[in-house]
């Protein structure tokens, strides 16, 4: 697996314009995050008036994926594109490591703790529960896991031991 492919680079000017459109498309479940913040856009190709966008799902059963695909299409139509193809690929599997720093900042401001570890580390820690998660409200690190599974597939439920607030944690994947 090529480690470089997680940040698509060397865009043509036409593809750059498409990326600018995609930067406006948000996740229906976490509306502060855009699809580019999430790192689910794998490739953009523009040729012969046709736009091809390749996306990868976050979670296998994520019900937002179908809607994200529709929203990308609508945004591109609105920007004047007519021939649009959206492909879905599974390989390489999406990882929270692909979330941008800006995306993590937005999550924090929204009240959701961003993924704290890289996946390489979280696999090792899976059975130890010692992931250091910062409370998005008071920045305390004195927090505890309430449940591995939260309000959506991508989140776990935590509570802050200092300010007592329960909060969502975007878990490593």
């Amino acid at each position: 697996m090529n480690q470089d492919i997680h940040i698509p680079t060397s865009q043509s000017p036409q593809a750059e314009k498409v990326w600018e459109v995609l930067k406006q498309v948000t996740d229906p479940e976490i509306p502060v995050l855009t699809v580019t913040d999430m790192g689910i856009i794998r490739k953009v190709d523009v040729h012969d008036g046709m736009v091809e966008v390749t996306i990868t799902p976050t979670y296998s059963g994520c019900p937002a994926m179908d809607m994200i695909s529709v929203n990308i299409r609508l945004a591109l139509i609105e920007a004047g594109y007519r021939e649009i193809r959206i492909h879905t690929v599974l390989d390489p599997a999406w990882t929270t490591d692909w979330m941008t720093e800006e995306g993590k900042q937005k999550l924090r401001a929204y009240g959701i703790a961003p993924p704290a570890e890289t996946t390489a580390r979280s696999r090792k820690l899976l059975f130890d529960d010692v992931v250091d998660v910062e409370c998005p409200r008071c920045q305390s690190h004195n927090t505890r896991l309430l449940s591995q599974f939260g309000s959506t597939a991508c989140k776990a439920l935590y509570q802050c031991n200092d300010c007592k607030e329960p909060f969502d944690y975007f878990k490593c994947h």
Partner: protein
Amino acid sequence: MSAHTSNQALIDYTLHLADSSLIMAQRSSEWCGHGPVLEQDIAITNISLDLLGQARHFYQYAAGLINQSADHTLKPATEDSLAYLRDERAFKNLLLTELPKGDWAQTILKHFFFSVYQSLLYTRLQTVPDKDLAAIAAKSLKEVAYHVKWSSEWVIRLGDGTAESHQRMLTAIEELWPYTGEMFRAADYETGMVDPSTLHAGWLKEVQDVFAEATLPMSSESVYMHVGGKTGLHTENLGYMLAELQYLQRAYPGAEW
């Protein structure tokens, strides 16, 4: 092996993986709104959704294979037609997945047995030459890791819990153990894919480790093992479940909302 039989084997194998995930998801979703506490209601519903997502990927791949083959009885296929319009005898899920949800102990133990098996299977499947199956396995494995963790913790919590929770786990082991053997006995269509018998030792080791911490006894390897699900011979439970799962699309073909 001719190209035709090997393609048929690949279709059957993919359907087997899809069916086990779908039936496991459908059965577990019965807890939605009935979980013992809110957090666990949400947990098992999320796990069901993960399994449903895996099933969809496998069905989509199988549908593509079916539509590419010259003549197939299931043609034209979609992920929906494969889930909603096949009869009980065509389903290839493990018998374990279709058993009634039982009490929380039985549900937990079933998830534990199944997710440990899935984690071992997908770890191997992600290296097979078939790129699509490998990709689905690699993707699913990330989710299954959480299912293993969740169910292991619950097995320990219930086994090493109160006298009643311990007793319920013993009953669950007695009920479910005779359905674990099927996971490791290969059906014809598994030839050339991951040989499930090679997963058995690793599975026993993981179960043994968690059972030891849960103060639960291992069952004997020599008990009678039920088989048949992989080749379409099911317990009476599957028909009832499919009746509910498939009713709408059977009564109102193509219905959308």
